[in-house]
Structures are given as C-alpha cells and as structure tokens.
C-alpha cells in the first residue's frame, strides 16, 4: 500500500455551482428551526424546582387543570433561540441606515450598568429609604435632559415616543382647560410621523394638515393661515422627517404662541442637534426624547423604548405623576395628584415610575459621551449623512434639490423612472449586498421615499463601501438587470414574504389542530 501523498484537497474546486440543494433544507450556518410548539413537550421542563411544602389550596375552587404550553430543556432552548437569532440583521452585524429610527451603536457598558443589582433588582414600591440611589439616578438624568434641551420641567414616566407625545399633548390640553380656553384642533404637517395625528385624535382633537413648501420645510405663512382660536397647538418634528432643519422654527413658534396655542416638538430627530441647539431656545413648549434613539438604549427588535418629555415654564405644572423631588441629598417621589404641591398634574400615564432600565442606559451613554462627545456625535451623524448625499447626489434623486441635510438624507424614486425597479425592489437588493435597507416609503410626502440615516457610529470605510454599493445598484437598475431587483433578496434566509395573504387570512398563533405540515 502506498502513501496517499496528496492528502486532503486544500484548493477550491473550480466550476462547481454553489447552490446545490441540501437534504435538510439547511444552508450551512442557516438552519431551519421549527416553532417551540412543534418540538417541546408539555411534560418537559428546563427549570429544576424543589417540591413545594405540603399544603391545602386556598384558590377558591378555581384550580387550573392544564395549559398546553410546551417545555424544553436548557440545551434545546439555547439552540432554538440561537438558531432563530441568526436569521436577524442587527447593528452589530452591519450598516443599518433606517432613517428616522437612529440605529446607532449600543454601548455594552450601558447594559452592564442596568444590570447592577441596585438598579435591576429593585422593586418600584419599596420604601423610599431603600431606593435613594434609584431616585437619584432619575433626578440626575432629568437634570442632564433639562440642560441639554434648555427646558423648565420634565416628565420621566412615558414609556416610548408615542406615549411621550400623548403626555405632552395631554399637558397642553390641561393647561388650556385650566385657563378656561379649551380648544379643538391640532395642526400637523403632512410629513409628520403617523403617531402625531394618532395622538391628537386620542385626545379628542381634530387634525388640520399643513402642507410642506417646495424645499421640504414648513412655512410660517402656512402655519399662520391655519391658526385660529380653535387651534390648541402644532405638532412639528424638528429636524423634520425629510432630514431638514426647520429654519423658520422660531417664527413658527412665535406665530403659534401669538394665537394662544402651544408648540409640541416631536423630538424623534433630536439626535441631529444635541449640543448644537436647544429646543428651549427655539420656542418649544413640549418635546419628547426617544432615549432609544438619541441616547442609544437598544431597540431590542421593537422596544422597550422610553420617551421622557421636557416642558416649558407654561406647561411644566401640568406634567403627570409620578415625579422625583430632591431635598438636599435626599429624594422622594410624588405619586398622586393630590400630593403634588404647587403643580396640577394631568394624572398618571402608567403604573410605577417609567422605564428605569432605559434611564440607567441613557445616563451611562450621556456620562460616557459628556458635553463634548454628545456634540461630536451630532456633528458626525450630520457629517456622515451629508457624505452619503455627496456620494450619491449625481446618481440618485433628491425630492427637494441638492441641499445640506441634517442626520439623514432623503431620496425619491425618480432616478428609477423607466427602469422597472421600485423603491421596494431597490431596498430588497440592498439586503443581498449585506446592508439593511433604508427607511422606505416614508415620509409620505415624497414618492417612493428612501430615507437614509447612517448615524455617527459608521466609519468612513463603511460609508465608502455603502456608497459604492448603492452606485453599483443604480447602475444595475439602469442596465436593466431586473432579476437582481425584482427577485431580491436572493441570498437572505427567506425570499419575499406574502404580506397580503398574512393580512387577509390572519394566522396569529400556532394551533394544535392544524399541524405544521398543513401550514407549509
């Protein structure tokens, strides 16, 4: 027998196709994973528990017999959730330029701080004497937010941006009712986030739309024209959803105040101007701050968020309970409307005190960056967006002309005219190139909108690759390489999903009667 001197082949075989089907349907690192209901068993558990002490029940005769929930052991649970996690795109994995969503890096120190037992393992109804540090943290974050915004008061309890919008508008409504000047209309620009009109409607207001002018901003004249004695206020996003700073914002604020109305600023895009301008100097009466955008608490696949609201002097007294009061080194909570001294809270928006876990992360971010780092972050975010604009302006189309943008740059789909490629196709083709698509079809005022927000977290090298890729995609669309677009994504864990079917015949849960084979 002779030695096989060649040994294991080490060179790639040329000419072999790489899309050979597999027996399992798996593709190496991409592994198909059923639902827990298809693999778990009701009698199995991954938690070892001691036997309870012998006892008679005192459940009022309402004992439950079964639930139907499957259980899995720890190794099975680990594998299940690790496998499905690998079907997710994430900021840590690549460029995630979702305009208006602010996918910046999530510092891991912030996670570590939120898990300190003194923050993460404290009950909201413990005696105040045992939670002085937690109250101090809330008070400190509140003070930092007030300094950053130049405002007079803050409500910390709103659970997310939309919850903050409600908070601000409820405070405005209460202030006007207290003055004997209840009003019925709220002005909302057409470019606004959908939450703005939805919030106004929840509070019983009628919504009056304000059109944008040619350059994508709101004109003071249009606002003045819409103002009358029925108008409670305006809800205006600044920088706006087209990525532009509302340069007439001070004039708009003056006109609103002159009409006896108030200025609610949607702070979703505050991250562009932190350390560069303060809402308090712009005439804003209320603004929510998305801690999960501006101050980098993780988006977590859709929450939890946190939406504290800052207030002007005029509105601050109407802020909701609870709030923290500082007395020297000691802190206390005001938890009920009746206990509020010198204030007229509109009520309570949530049980307990707000998203403490997010407060810790946001303060950790703010302390890490400091006054200088936060300003630098805003500048880099704006610089990165403009760098993308400059890199693409000759091949993609901007709806309002080539002008300086803030932290995000907006394109429309006119550059795709006659190519047979839509904004959706273009976005899906980006997936194949390893990028998360930009925000698409928002804002609604622009046809086929593509809103790109790179944030300050991207390096120049990452931006250069992003720009080169988009230029190549534009070229591909012009060259008529339709398959690249209309069939995209070709390389994602899933091909395009049928959303119409999902909405027409909603299947919102796994059903034991309908086994998986039937569904597939």
């Amino acid at each position: 027998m002779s030695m096989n001197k060649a040994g294991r082949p080490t060179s790639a075989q040329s000419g072999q196709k790489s899309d050979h089907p597999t027996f399992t349907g798996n593709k190496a690192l991409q592994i198909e994973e059923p639902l827990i209901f298809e693999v778990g068993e009701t009698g199995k558990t991954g938690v070892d528990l001691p036997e309870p002490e012998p006892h008679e029940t005192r459940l009022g005769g309402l004992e439950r017999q079964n639930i139907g929930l499957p259980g899995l052991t720890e190794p099975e649970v680990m594998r299940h959730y690790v496998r499905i996690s690998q079907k997710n795109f994430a900021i840590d994995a690549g460029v995630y330029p979702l305009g208006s969503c602010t996918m910046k890096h999530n510092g891991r120190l912030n996670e570590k701080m939120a898990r300190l037992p003194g923050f993460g393992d404290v009950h909201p109804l413990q005696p105040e004497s045992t939670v002085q540090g937690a109250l101090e943290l809330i008070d400190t974050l509140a003070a930092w937010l007030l300094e950053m915004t130049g405002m007079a008061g803050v409500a910390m309890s709103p659970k997310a941006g939309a919850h903050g919008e409600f908070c601000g508008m409820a405070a405005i409504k209460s202030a006007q009712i207290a003055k004997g000047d209840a009003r019925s209309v709220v002005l909302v620009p057409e470019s606004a986030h959908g939450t703005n009109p939805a919030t106004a409607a929840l509070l019983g207001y009628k919504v009056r739309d304000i059109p944008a002018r040619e350059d994508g901003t709101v004109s003071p004249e249009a606002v003045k024209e819409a103002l009358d004695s029925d108008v409670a206020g305006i809800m205006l996003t600044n920088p706006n959803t087209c990525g532009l700073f509302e340069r007439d914002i001070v004039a708009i604020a003056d006109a609103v105040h002159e009409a006896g109305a108030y200025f609610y600023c949607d702070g979703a895009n505050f991250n562009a101007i932190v350390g560069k301008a303060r809402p308090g100097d712009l005439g804003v009466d209320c603004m929510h701050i998305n801690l999960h955008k501006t101050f980098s608490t993780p988006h977590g696949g859709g929450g939890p968020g946190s939406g504290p609201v800052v207030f002007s002097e005029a509105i601050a007294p109407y802020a909701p309970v609870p709030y923290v009061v500082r007395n020297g080194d000691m802190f206390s909570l005001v938890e009920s409307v009746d206990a509020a001294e010198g204030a007229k809270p509109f009520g309570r928006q949530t049980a307990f005190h707000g998203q403490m876990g997010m407060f810790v992360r946001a303060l950790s971010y703010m302390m890490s960056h400091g006054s200088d780092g936060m300003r630098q972050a805003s500048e880099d975010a704006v610089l990165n967006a403009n760098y993308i604009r400059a890199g693409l302006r000759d091949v993609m189309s901007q709806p309002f002309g080539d002008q300086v943008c803030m932290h995000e740059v907006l394109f429309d789909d006119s550059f795709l005219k006659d190519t047979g490629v839509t904004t959706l196709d273009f976005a899906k083709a980006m997936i194949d190139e390893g990028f998360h698509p930009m925000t698409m079809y928002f804002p609604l005022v622009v046809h086929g909108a593509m809103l790109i927000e790179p944030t300050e977290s991207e390096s120049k090298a990452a931006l250069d690759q992003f720009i080169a890729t988009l230029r190549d995609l534009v070229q591909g669309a012009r060259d008529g390489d339709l398959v690249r677009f209309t069939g995209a994504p070709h390389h994602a864990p899933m091909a395009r999903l049928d959303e119409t079917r999902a909405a027409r015949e909603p299947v919102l849960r796994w059903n034991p009667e309908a086994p998986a084979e039937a569904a597939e």
Partner: protein
Amino acid sequence: MRYLPLTDDDRRTMLAGIGVQNIDDLFADIPDDVRLKELVDLPRHASELEVERQLGAMAARNTAASSVPFFVGCGAYKHHVPASVDHLIQRSEFLTAYTPYQPEISQGTLQYLFEFQTQVAMLTGMEVANASMYDGSTACGEAVLMAQRLTRRTNAVLSGSLHPQYRDVVVMLSDMSETPLKALSADPEGTEDIIASIDDDTACVVVQTPDVFGRVHDLSKIAAAAHEKGALLIAVVTEVISLGALKPPGEMGADIVVAEGQSIGVGLNFGGPYVGLLATRQKYLRQMPGRVCGETVDANGKRGFVLTLSTREQHIRREKATSNICTNSGLCSLAFTIHLSLLGEAGLMKLARINHANAIALADALTGINSVEILTPSFFNEFTIRVPGKGAAVIESLAEKGVLGGVPASRLVPGQKDLDDLIIVAATEVNTPQDREVYVKALTEVLS
C-alpha cells in the same frame, strides 16, 4: 471618544468631499442666534471606569431585592430568572435589531413574536394575542379604549380591587377624552357588587384577579351579567404566574385579558421596562391595538412570519388608527418567551404551586401573631393583613430591621383612612423558611 469611529483626518476629507469648509456649514439652517457656540454645562466625556464608579455609587444606595427577606408585590414580583434567559436576550441579533420591517432578514424576531403570541393566548385561555404592550397598566388602558370601539359605548366600570395605579391610568384616559367612567371605591373586604353597576350604557367592566389585595375571583357571573347588557368583560392579571394555578380568564367568559408579564423573564427594574400582555377573541382582532405578527409564506412557499394587520396602525391610518402605539416591548417579550419555553406547562404549574404554598405558609405564620388579621381567605401568592397602627409606619420599621415586608395600602390609595392599617404581602419561590421566620420575628417586635 471610544464610540466615534471618524478620525479628524476623516472629517476633513469628508467635509472637502461634500464641498463645505467646516462642520458648522452643515448646521447653517439653525438660526445663528440660537445656535450654541459653547458646550452645554455638563461634564466632559468619561471612561468606562469613571462611569462605573459614579453609577455604581448610586446603585449602592439601593437595597436590592435579593439581599434581604423580600415580600413586596402589588403588580411587580421578585422571581428567579434562569441564567440562559439573560444570556440569550443579549445576543446582538436580538438586542441591536429594529422593529422587523424587513421580514426576510428579521425572522428571528418575528418567529419569537409568533411564539410569544401563542404562549400568551394559551396562558390566558384566549384565542389571539398581540405582540405585547408597554406594560400591564397601559395595556389595561388600551383594552378599555378597544372595548369602547367595539361596543360604541363610552362608560367603563372599574372594580375597586383593580390595582389603583392601573385605575389611575384608565381614569386619566377618560378625563383626557372627556368620557364618563364609574370607578368603585377600594374594596379590601371583597364586598363590592359590581354587577349592580352594569347598565345599558356600559362599554366594559374591568376586574382584576387575583386582585390588588390578593383575592381570587370567579369571573363567570360578572361576564354573564356584562354580556347580558351588551358590555365586555376585561380581566386584568398582574401576577402572571397565577395562571399556572388558576382557571384562566378565557374560561370564565372574559372578552379581553390584559396582564403584566414581568414575573416571567423580566427583572424588577424599579418598575420598568416590563411587558404588557393583551389577548382577546378572534372576532375582535381587528380592533386590537398594537403590533401583531402573523404567519405567511415566502415566494418559494416556505413558512415565514411578518408584521400584519398594519391597516389598524398609526403609520397607515394616522388619526383613524386604533392606537398611537408604535412599539411593543420587544426584548422583554423575548425574555418572557424564553423563560416560558424553559418552564413549559409542567414547570409553570409547579412554580405556581410553590408560590401558593409559600404564601399559605407565610399567611399562617403572620396571622400567628396575635394582633395580625388576614382579610383574604382565598389568594394565590399575595394577601392582605390588618395590623394595629399605620401600615406605612410598620413597613418603614421593618425596612430598618432589614425586611422588605410588603406594600402599605395607603401608598397606593392615599387619603382613604380605612386602608391605613392594611399591608399587602407577597411570597414567591425566592422566599426561604428562614426569610419567613425573620419576617415573623421582625413584625412581632415592631408590633409589640
């Protein structure tokens, strides 16, 4: 600055590429007189070590629940969470993803949301659930609004045993939308007759079980009475572990169930973030608020999941949306789903038995003290005791002795004198027989 990849060289090159002189040219739309020329008056950037020191000092001023005998509940509960839960939710692919708007590269999030919705429906005994709300209290508020839409009526009737802060949320919503509301007064003795308050204008009846004082309720009669008048029953559960022992609201006629899911997978976090559960009947799903994940197929016919029914939502419907809500409690719902996958039916039911057994043992031990009386004959893992004197003062004295002994009812319902001597006490699997002994000894001393 450790979080900012651009170098000064990069910045210069990029500004030149854009065609501007300096960074302030990019901020020229901010009127000059309001543009900040100086840094705001806050400390400069800090190293990890410095931040850890400062925040660590604040954390050290708090008493962590695990460090003492701990019996505080009322809507948030101290439970043990397996280590694998926190490990998994910190995976980048879950932690640093956005809302799954691009389903082809978000199946991880979408699949667990589908699992979550199924678990919540099973747990509550309902047909469908959404992908979670901010927390139990805001879910309760949304459920009332949903019932108002479904019945085209405005009046809600709130049980006096509903968690007072949940009640405050609903009251605030009704104040703000100027709709009528009937909130019964606090009912520690369990004597209220809520059925008498239901009439032809009632949109919904909101009842909690186990209620804020710990008492367990059979909802069947209330459901029947509500339905007879064309009203809906909203059942509220603030201790979701109880559903491992108690007949679920769905089997007692509830139309909407809302719950605080914190007990499964989510820590105490001083009150948030938590995870709100909302489940209902299939026929009501188009009026259900919040995000929903649904099953479908991709272009190759492979099963997959997407966000669906978005025509209810604010980004499409704007002022006509079912709610202004645009997030769920994503990562907390993942923690919930993972923990519940580990427990399964067998684990959850056993965990519930342990909680119940510990609460019975504690109740018996505390009522062994002469002057202590229990108000709740039936309960799950939480009950109410009457003590001589003021509950708040007793709790404070216990804290000085290193025991966190519960919640004085006066903290939740200030100004109602007949509640001043009541304390709401919770026991879970984390309490040991020694904790119980320490509590009894401390309370005996405080009361003597």
